[in-house]
């Protein structure tokens, strides 16, 4: 399982994913602009460096495994919670002690008849309070342009084939609503505990570009 923990461990820069080569250290004026802006805003007393540090730390504490996946796993095991979640995602997530974000949260249930996938064509709106920062591909021109128009082809590239008799429903997240997809609970997990179930629900499942997979050698029962 990929490790999404990006917390800054002092000077230990062991990252699970490489930094994009041309982004790692700022080189150009455009890349220094953010650093310059930060320096000026601190100089002018708009905020303190601690405000930035605290914000980054708060952002990095949110991961799909510990946040979004918990919501889905709870809905899988608790039918009353699932009903509440589908009716009012914001309130239901709050009831778990999690931050639903500042926008209206809608949970999209995958069923035998419908597969949901989420995109923001205009920018990159994403349920950050449950999934952390979006992956670069979610913000890419290709994902934003193609998912609304040829979703099945995009899903195929991500390794998901949807049957002909199942509807693909694309959600363009363009106002102050945020979405996560609740994937279908895989068969054979009826006796699994919540932690094991949550481990099946990846970030990509909750965007809608993956479905939960039970590894045949999975020893997480």
């Amino acid at each position: 399982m990929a490790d999404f923990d990006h917390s800054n461990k002092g000077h230990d820069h062991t990252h699970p994913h490489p930094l994009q080569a041309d982004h790692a250290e700022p080189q150009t004026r455009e890349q220094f602009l953010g650093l310059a802006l930060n320096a000026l805003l601190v100089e002018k007393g708009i905020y303190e460096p601690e405000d930035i540090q605290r914000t980054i730390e708060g952002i990095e504490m949110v991961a799909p495994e510990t946040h979004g996946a918990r919501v889905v796993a709870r809905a899988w095991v608790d039918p009353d919670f699932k009903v509440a979640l589908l009716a009012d995602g914001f309130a239901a997530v709050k009831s778990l002690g999690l931050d639903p974000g500042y926008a209206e949260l809608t949970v999209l249930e995958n069923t035998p008849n419908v597969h949901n996938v989420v995109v923001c064509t205009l920018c990159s709106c994403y349920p950050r309070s449950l999934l952390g920062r979006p992956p670069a591909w979610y913000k890419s021109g290709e994902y934003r342009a193609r998912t609304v128009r040829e979703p099945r082809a995009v899903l195929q590239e991500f390794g998901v084939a949807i049957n002909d008799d199942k509807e693909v429903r694309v959600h363009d997240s363009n106002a102050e609503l945020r979405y996560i997809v609740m994937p279908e609970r895989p068969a054979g997990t009826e006796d699994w505990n919540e932690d094991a179930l949550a481990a099946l629900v990846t970030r990509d499942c909750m965007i809608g570009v993956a479905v939960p997979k039970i590894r045949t050698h999975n020893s997480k029962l």
Partner: protein
Amino acid sequence: MNAGQRYDLGDRVRIDDRREPRHHRTPAFVKGQTGIVTRVCMDQAKPEDVAYFTMNGPRVPVYRIRMMQCDLWPDYTGKPDDTLDIEMHGHWLQPA
């Protein structure tokens, strides 16, 4: 412009295709398209206002509108039942 009109679940609506020089959140590919209201969401401030720091403008209803992909794209290569849902602020909608 019927900013004040309220729609109900199941209402058929058309998304305006008017020109709007200000910031707005109606993508080109849905302008002029028709769909069904599938959810009534919370009222929101208009993006046309808040983008320019007008925070006390009138709030408008927001709806989720469902459209058929075959209607949106003449060359759609998916399946006939495939759909697309998008949020739409009330001031961008007319009855269809």
